[in-house]
């Protein structure tokens, strides 16, 4: 069996070595193209095998949902966070990508394999595939093609939506994007019924076949290819791309538009060009996420997926994580997706107190030790030794609060997950009051500046010690 698996991996591996070598010959950077692909492959394989062997089906599905949410949140970060254009129609791109990819695999399966059933490869299907099935050949290859096609069509629409943003700013642009999402939703509602058999497809007009995606009845027949492998490979590639974008001249140009459009233009940044690119890139990744979502087990694509409620779910992730922070958006996506599940199990939630209470105690003790902030010029620059203890206490309050909430809910027999929308709204309000810049602000997890409160705290301690 192992020999077979190794053989089946050889050719895709050969491909991911060959592609960078060819690209490398052009650009001179084979290694830098190779490692993200290799990492994506390794992470994907690990997720697929380890998670599925160590966890039950339900948890696996949760982890898969988290992965898709991360791609969505990071893609929206590129528009809302980098270029600062407030788009509230992101789910439109998700739906477009999902429907395009779904239509391709569904009707493609009829054309290629004679039926709509998924012909799973080794790495597709959440609940595992046949042992020794091929990798990327057959149905899996069709799935990969469909994902990319969905992403590209969504990116094309991203350009279409990006174009009005040449003339509009702020609220006005937000309204246009909202309109876009609604247009997509209504258009999908008008599509004809899904053609269920070969005969029906043969009888229908050829052009109408790929558009027969079920209208308001939903499109549940999409073959279920999505697996932890594909989702997390996509997550890795999305994260690496977003990071590289942020670090590049192009990314800086986008960030400068967010900061001050007039100044950016005066510094030679073609603001419209970068805004449209921002929309296109974000739409591409949202389309990929949509494709993954459409092929997930238990999901029936429906026009609602293009609606503004879905868009707001993504916005909440981006805003909570911090506008412009890739890692912040990813973390927030994981929390926002996973928290409702936690709310369903108050016993687990109550155990949070084990972490939360000590955090409160330690935070309080540190605050007592911290002393006053620097006076004079230091203060203006925001050096405050109390910032770090406050952050510890803040996190402690949230964690302890959740466990208290779970305790109360259990005591009175309330199902907390029924109230998750209220809880999210509350969390958003509290966040906006206490930390409007979001979890990480514009920083990334690995930015030194994020840890300045920590440094301020200890440097203030040292300075005090020196004085005493």
């Amino acid at each position, binding site marked *: 069996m192992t020999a077979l698996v190794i053989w089946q991996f050889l050719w895709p591996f050969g491909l991911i070595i060959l592609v960078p070598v060819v690209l490398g010959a*052009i650009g001179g950077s084979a290694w830098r193209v190779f490692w993200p692909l290799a990492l994506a492959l390794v992470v994907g394989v690990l997720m697929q095998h380890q998670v599925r062997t160590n966890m039950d089906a339900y948890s696996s599905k949760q982890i898969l949902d988290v992965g898709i949410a991360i791609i969505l949140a990071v893609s929206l970060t590129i528009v809302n966070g980098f270029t600062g254009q407030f788009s509230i129609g992101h789910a439109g791109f998700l739906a477009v990508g999902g429907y395009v990819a779904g239509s391709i695999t569904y009707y493609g399966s009829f054309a290629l394999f004679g039926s709509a059933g998924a012909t799973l490869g080794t790495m597709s299907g959440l609940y595992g595939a046949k042992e020794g099935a091929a990798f990327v050949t057959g149905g899996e290859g069709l799935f990969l093609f469909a994902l990319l096609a969905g992403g590209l069509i969504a990116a094309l629409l991203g350009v279409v939506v990006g174009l009005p943003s040449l003339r509009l700013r702020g609220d006005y642009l937000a309204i246009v994007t909202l309109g876009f999402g609604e247009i997509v939703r209504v258009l999908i509602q008008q599509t004809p019924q899904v053609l269920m058999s070969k005969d029906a497809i043969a009888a229908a007009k050829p052009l109408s076949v790929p558009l027969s995606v079920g209208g308001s009845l939903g499109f549940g027949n999409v073959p279920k290819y999505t697996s932890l492998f594909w989702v997390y490979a996509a997550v890795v590639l999305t994260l690496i791309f977003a990071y590289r974008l942020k670090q*590049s*001249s192009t990314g800086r*140009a986008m960030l400068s538009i967010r900061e001050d459009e007039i100044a950016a233009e005066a510094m030679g940044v073609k603001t419209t060009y970068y805004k449209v690119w921002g929309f296109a890139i974000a739409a591409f990744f949202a389309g990929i996420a949509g494709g993954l979502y459409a092929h997930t087990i238990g999901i029936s694509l429906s026009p609602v997926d293009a609606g503004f409620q879905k868009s707001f779910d993504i916005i909440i992730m981006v805003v909570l994580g911090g506008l412009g922070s890739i890692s912040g958006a990813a973390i927030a996506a994981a929390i926002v997706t996973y928290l409702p599940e936690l709310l369903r199990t108050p016993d687990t939630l109550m155990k949070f107190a084990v972490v939360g209470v000590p955090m409160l105690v330690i935070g309080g003790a540190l605050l007592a030790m911290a002393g006053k902030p620097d006076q004079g010029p230091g203060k*203006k620059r925001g050096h405050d030794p109390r910032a770090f203890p406050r952050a510890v206490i803040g996190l402690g309050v949230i964690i302890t609060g959740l466990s208290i909430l779970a305790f109360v809910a259990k005591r009175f027999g309330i199902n907390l997950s029924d109230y998750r929308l209220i809880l999210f709204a509350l969390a958003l309000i509290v966040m906006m009051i206490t930390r409007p810049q979001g979890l990480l602000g514009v920083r990334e997890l690995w930015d030194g500046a994020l840890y300045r409160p920590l440094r301020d705290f200890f440097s203030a301690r040292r300075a005090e010690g020196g004085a005493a």
Partner: protein
Amino acid sequence: MTSTVSSAISMTMSDAAEVLKGSGAAGESLEVRGVFKSFGGLKAVQDFRLSLPPAALYGLIGPNGAGKTTCFNLLTGVYRPDQGEITLGGKSLIGLRPSEIAFTGLARTFQNIRLFGELSVFENVKLACHLRTTHSLAGVILRSGWQRAEEAAIRERARALLQVFNLHDRMDESARNLPYGDQRRLEIARALATGPKVLLLDEPAAGMNPQEKKDLRKLIREVRDVFGVSILMIEHDMGVVMDLCERITVLDYGVPIAEGTPHEIQKNPKVIEAYLGKE
């Protein structure tokens, strides 16, 4: 001269100029003739004219609301003139977008500081190096050799500029956290990073204390001498203007009422009238 960058503090102005070489300074003159602009019934600028030779240091003064900043906005393409001619090195700037004008070699600072506040000081300057580089999405995805080489060049350039402006020890600070005077200087550094031939400074000394003003005078003069850019500045501080500028244009109600050396301007009865009124 790459070694000068790593050896940090000892870098002198001319060392830095060496690093920044190839950034404009080609000795082209800015010619403005008969520019008019009105907003509805308000004639904001009438018959504005200016001839800024290479490496010159000229001033644009006038009472509040005289239309000085409007002139800057006309020059940099924020507004389009109703009529008139603006050329840089013989090339017309009329109808170009601000980003295109920046590319032809006109850089500016703003009266109300417009830094990229959330970005670091370093990133502010790096961004301004953006327009003299090639950049493509393929470079981002592939992290190709030339893309990284270019990033390295941008870093070096930005670092050198920050050293000239003595801001290198606050490189990683968010721009908005800088003291006011530093923010003004960072804006000039950022404008210079675009590699301009002409630098427009909108009230560079505003909000500075006497010592900062003194340093600023020295800096502006050095920037002109070392980088060879022409500078046109709007300034209300007469000490700074009279000391620095070779020639001064005075605007009043959008009309240029006088033009000449600081000495001539000080004596000009029309100017005195515009500022102090008639007896």
